[in-house]
């Protein structure tokens, strides 16, 4: 184990239970690196996950408190938890694309609406890979999966003119970024900014699934083929090419620009409590 893993992760989960060639480890690494550089301790961070690859292969990896919610609802658990948690504690969630942008989208949007302090990393393997490789709402157009044998034709959340990050921005998210998992340093910097935003932050990270996605979409399980395929379709914001699907970098940064949810709630509770302090409960 490397020094970061020894310091922050449970040895039982190292090496990871993810498939060989999976990019999830790059996502984890960026989060742990950011935590280390910000000087957070194990007890400062609560790491939550949902289901799917991003959930199952992440749960209980973090050495501190870690929990895995039901399918798509970990956002609602986190919102309830955020309200009662001391403000200095950080909540980070690594969740899948189906979890965040499909089954849990409603709950995610209400975390956004309220600007609840949490950092959500959507680890996007371009579909439902832990169930064998069905298409999801970030599977690029034309891609063959187990459930789109003639190519993905269902409209998706990354196609031109309907970027899912636009929805989150309009809903009130205060920090949004997108990366591919091979982005390395740039992704670590985005995660650090996300943690430092006292409010709702989301980082959308495309990561390679060599087991199911690559096999159906590319006809190859060679990690290098898929890494290259993803990199060719990603470009920094402002440097898009005709074949660009994923525009990477910091998409929207309004960090600390509006009240954080639990601050808002407890401010109001304190005000009401003060007003009725001399009247008892009734």
């Amino acid at each position, binding site marked *: 184990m490397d020094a970061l893993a020894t310091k922050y992760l449970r040895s039982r989960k190292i090496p990871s239970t993810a498939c060989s060639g999976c990019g999830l480890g790059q996502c984890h690494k960026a989060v742990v690196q950011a935590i280390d550089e910000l000087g957070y301790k194990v007890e400062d961070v609560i790491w939550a996950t949902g289901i799917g690859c991003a959930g199952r292969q992440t*749960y209980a990896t973090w050495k501190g408190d870690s929990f895995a919610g*039901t399918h798509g609802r970990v956002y609602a658990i986190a919102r*309830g938890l955020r*309200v*009662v948690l001391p403000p200095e504690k950080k909540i980070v969630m690594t969740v899948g694309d189906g979890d965040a942008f499909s089954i849990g989208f409603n709950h995610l949007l209400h975390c956004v609406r309220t600007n609840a302090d949490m950092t959500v990393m959507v680890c996007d393997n371009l579909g439902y890979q832990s169930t064998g490789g069905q298409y999801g709402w970030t599977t690029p157009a034309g891609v063959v999966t187990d459930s789109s044998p003639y190519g993905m034709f269902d409209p998706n959340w990354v196609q031109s003119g309907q970027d899912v990050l636009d929805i989150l921005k309009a809903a009130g998210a205060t920090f949004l970024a997108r990366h591919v998992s091979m982005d390395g340093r740039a992704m670590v910097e985005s995660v650090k900014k996300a943690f430092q935003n006292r409010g709702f932050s989301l980082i959308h990270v495309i990561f390679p699934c060599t087991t199911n996605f690559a096999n159906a979409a590319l006809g190859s399980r060679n990690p290098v083929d898929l890494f290259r395929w993803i990199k060719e379709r990603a470009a920094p914001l402002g440097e898009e090419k005709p074949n660009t699907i994923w525009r990477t970098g910091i998409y929207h940064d309004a960090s600390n620009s509006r009240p954080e949810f639990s601050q808002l709630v407890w401010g109001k509770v304190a005000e009401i409590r003060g007003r009725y302090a001399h009247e008892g409960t*009734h």
Partner: protein
Amino acid sequence: MRRVLETGNFAVTEAAIMAGCRAFFAYPITPATEIAESMSKFLPRVGGVYLQAEDETAAMHMVIGASLGGYKAMTATSGPGYILYADPYGWAIGCEIPLVVLNAQRVGPVSGITGAPGQGEFYMSRYPTQGGNFETIVLAPNSAQEAFQLTVEAFYLSERFRTPVTVLADQLVTDGWEDISVPETEEEKAAMGLRFMERKVHPGPNFYPPTDEIDLPPVVVGRGRNVLCSDWTPTEEGFDIETVEAQHKHAYRLVYKIRNHKDLITRHETLFLDEDPEVIVVAYGTPSRVVKTAVKKARAQGQKVGMIRPISLWPFPDELFKRKAAYLSVELNYDGQMVREIERAAPRDSAVHFYGKCGELPTVAELQRVFDRLLNGQPLARDGWEMEAW
């Protein structure tokens, strides 16, 4: 003692606050909305938080989140919301999270009649989620006063057993205005039989051993205990695993922590059971109040009837049904849900009859006619649309 003329909804709010509830999340629904309204008014005054969720699924998950953060937390709903609790209810059972749910039953299926009492979630409260491999605790009040007492008790049991507890009320209990006594001193609380349990914090990092123990502190995050909990089958350390051995140990704990301590949960009211009843009438919730009047009246006329009112519905009080007699289940539904449990619990050759209505209570006169028929050995059958009987 403070006496107020108020609704059951208000009584539940008073009780929850007294029991230490400081987080309440819900989605508005008739006939439980007034609990949310009174929580929104009174919780902030005592330093608690009330929030409206985007739907019932989120409300229950937020309750889980608050409990996971160390707060006593609660939600309230009716049937169409209770079904949406199914998903987080299972998570809370599996992760052994204490919390309290109030279900003000109305008439179904689906939205049915919103402002009338029903008893359609008898079995659903036993199996409020998928997957099986668990026991549940359900308490059923028949008055605003009892809703107060059982809400306090629900918090107590949820903490000791580290599990969600449902208070299964009905629309008449929650919406009805009644004389309610609210104890104010410790002596008054004790005299009313109220029990309280403070939140304890799991020492971490392991999950739970495969034992039937209660009083193990629940998992709380944010306290530096490095705890784990998830929707997957856990090892004793809390890691996710897919082995039947781990699953058997998990299921054993979830089932037997409740089964082996049933005596802490069971409550009931009985009438004339030791006076040789030929017909034993069984009812819970609001209908039991009409039944009680009818049974007393029948006894006064010399008829050999008795009554069993389960107050704790689940685990079902099998031990109350040992007498050889004809049983009559009176319920606010047409399908006769509790009948099957009585058939299971009663001596093998017992006749189990049913008298059920949807959305309105039977009258004492109606029940008297039913008693007359049964005591005269005549069959019971539906007569028109206004009830179901057999």
